[in-house]
């Protein structure tokens, strides 16, 4: 397949890549409805694209390239169905009926119909029978318009691996006879959850990528935001859909503030908030309001996370943060989606809101949690709370443990720096510790 990417050398290739990005999901979605096969739909859409590329190179780019591509795809689908009909004489009658309805479908494909097609494609690509890796690859390829090469670069795996994941995903969909349909009302929550999970996975893959990497990785955030925005337009009634988009937009708003000059991570509370992207903050907070107004049976997990992100986003300075509210949001999150990491975050918020002793009371039981036994942020948080209580020797031991657990060299250096500082503070007479820490200009 020769879908050129946006960095093609020739201008027709670049324009074609842009058209592919705009039209491919719609084209594949419409063809999949008509052909009842995602696999065939994608193949024919790509054939149509290759045809478009050849024609445009020869005759120039048409006035309405999107329409041109749709028409080319439609012709290929009709040809494929005629071929099927010839091959299956005994189904002639059915096929004839189907075909005439197809022609009508194509002519009448209103925006609502195309919207439904897109949504169906999203649900099928994210179907829970497919492995998580498969769902991610399929979604980026079918709905994000990314090539296999681009997906491979983004996830740091060879192109062949991505191709294999996609092939396997399609095979699973075929073997399990997954109908190309919107989920039944009863299945909707679980199916929607799977779609949201895939989008958030894509986002986090981009968001957690360290700075200085290939540009494809951070670009995954944009792909995820785009998918989230599309989904919010297609299912505007669902609270969690708006909530996920809000969460991603608020997180993305901090992208410029998250790394220091040398690429080191800057923690939320230490970030220069003037670097936050105000357009995304505003959109994120608006989305949160939209999500809150659509709650039916209590807030969902994305809503609570978005609300927490919103608390940070609305605080002009770190010291203005509404910690009691964040602590209660984490408590609510523990209730519906319990996890030791959420509990650890609750400890941090409670420590800020109600004092380090309260935070420590939540952290200490987590020490026995096997899921956190290798998690450097557990001893790191604990060290911070202990230090605030003046228990510097214990704080030093804890943060040294964090340094031993992390695999990130930069993080380790920061932990060890803190360990040295706790060591120094621990050696000072207690009543002076705070003051000495503030006015330490003595290079002793």
């Amino acid at each position, binding site marked *: 397949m020769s879908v050129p990417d*946006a960095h093609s050398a020739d201008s027709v290739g*670049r*324009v074609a*890549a*842009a*058209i592919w*990005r*705009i039209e491919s999901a719609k084209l594949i979605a419409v063809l999949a409805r008509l052909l009842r096969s995602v696999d065939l739909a994608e193949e024919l859409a790509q054939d149509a694209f290759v045809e478009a590329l050849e024609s445009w190179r020869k005759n120039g780019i048409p006035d309405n*390239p*999107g329409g041109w591509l749709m028409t080319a795809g439609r012709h290929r689908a009709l040809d494929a169905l005629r071929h099927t009909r010839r091959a299956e004489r005994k189904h002639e009658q059915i096929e004839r009926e189907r075909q005439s309805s197809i022609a009508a479908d194509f002519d009448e494909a209103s*925006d609502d119909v195309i*919207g439904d097609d*897109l949504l169906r494609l999203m649900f099928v690509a994210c179907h829970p029978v497919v492995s998580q890796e498969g769902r991610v690859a399929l979604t980026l390829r079918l709905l994000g318009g990314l090539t296999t090469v681009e997906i491979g670069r983004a996830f740091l795996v060879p192109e062949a691996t991505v191709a294999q994941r996609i092939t396997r995903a399609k095979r699973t969909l075929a073997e399990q006879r997954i109908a190309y349909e919107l989920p039944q009302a009863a299945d909707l929550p679980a199916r929607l959850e799977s779609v949201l999970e895939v989008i958030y996975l894509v986002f986090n893959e981009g968001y957690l990528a360290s700075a200085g990497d290939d540009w494809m990785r951070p*670009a995954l955030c*944009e792909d995820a*935001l*785009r*998918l*989230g*925005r*599309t989904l919010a*337009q*297609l299912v505007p009634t669902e609270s969690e859909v708006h909530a996920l988009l809000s969460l991603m937009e608020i997180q993305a708003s901090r992208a*410029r503030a998250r790394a220091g000059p040398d690429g080191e991570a800057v923690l939320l509370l230490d970030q*220069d908030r*003037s*670097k936050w992207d105000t*357009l995304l903050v505003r*959109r994120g907070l608006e989305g949160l309001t939209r999500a809150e107004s659509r709650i039916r049976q209590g807030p969902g997990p994305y809503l609570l996370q978005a609300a927490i992100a919103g608390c940070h986003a609305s605080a002009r300075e770190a010291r203005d943060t509404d910690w009691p509210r964040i602590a209660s949001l984490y408590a609510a999150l523990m209730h519906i989606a319990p996890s030791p990491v959420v509990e650890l975050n609750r400890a941090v918020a409670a420590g800020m809101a109600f004092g380090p002793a309260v935070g420590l009371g939540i952290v200490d039981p987590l020490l026995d949690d096997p899921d956190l036994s290798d998690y450097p942020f557990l001893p790191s948080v604990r060290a911070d709370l202990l230090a605030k209580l003046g228990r510097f020797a214990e704080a030093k031991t804890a943060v040294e443990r964090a340094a031993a657990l992390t695999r990130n060299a930069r993080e380790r250096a920061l932990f060890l720096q803190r360990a040295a500082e706790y060591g120094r503070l621990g050696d000072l007479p207690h009543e002076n510790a705070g003051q000495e820490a503030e006015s330490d200009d003595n290079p002793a």
Partner: protein
Amino acid sequence: MRYIVLVGHDEKGGKAMSPEQHQALFAAYQKYEADLKQAGVFLGGEPLKGSDQGVRISREGGKRKLLDGPFSESKEIIGGYFVLEVKSRDEAVEWAARCPAAELGAWSYVELREIQEIPR
């Protein structure tokens, strides 16, 4: 990358439209916005009120100068905008070309400008 699609037109051209044409144009803008949203590229956008309600402000000879609209000397004015997030300039051009203002004839056009990111 972010772009702004500036909708420019000659206000007289708009006034020459029949109510039906106005309605059709309004519907075309609604569809355009829905398409942008469905594609996930829409970040914002609003129509602007007429230039007769606008004002231009400058400082000349050390004095603040206000000039109330309409601005008769300029035939073309900005009637609205869309802010888009896209992956390439070509994609932005294609979306801008689909804006109704780019389809109405010589009295109307769109201007596409990339939004400059300020390094902070």
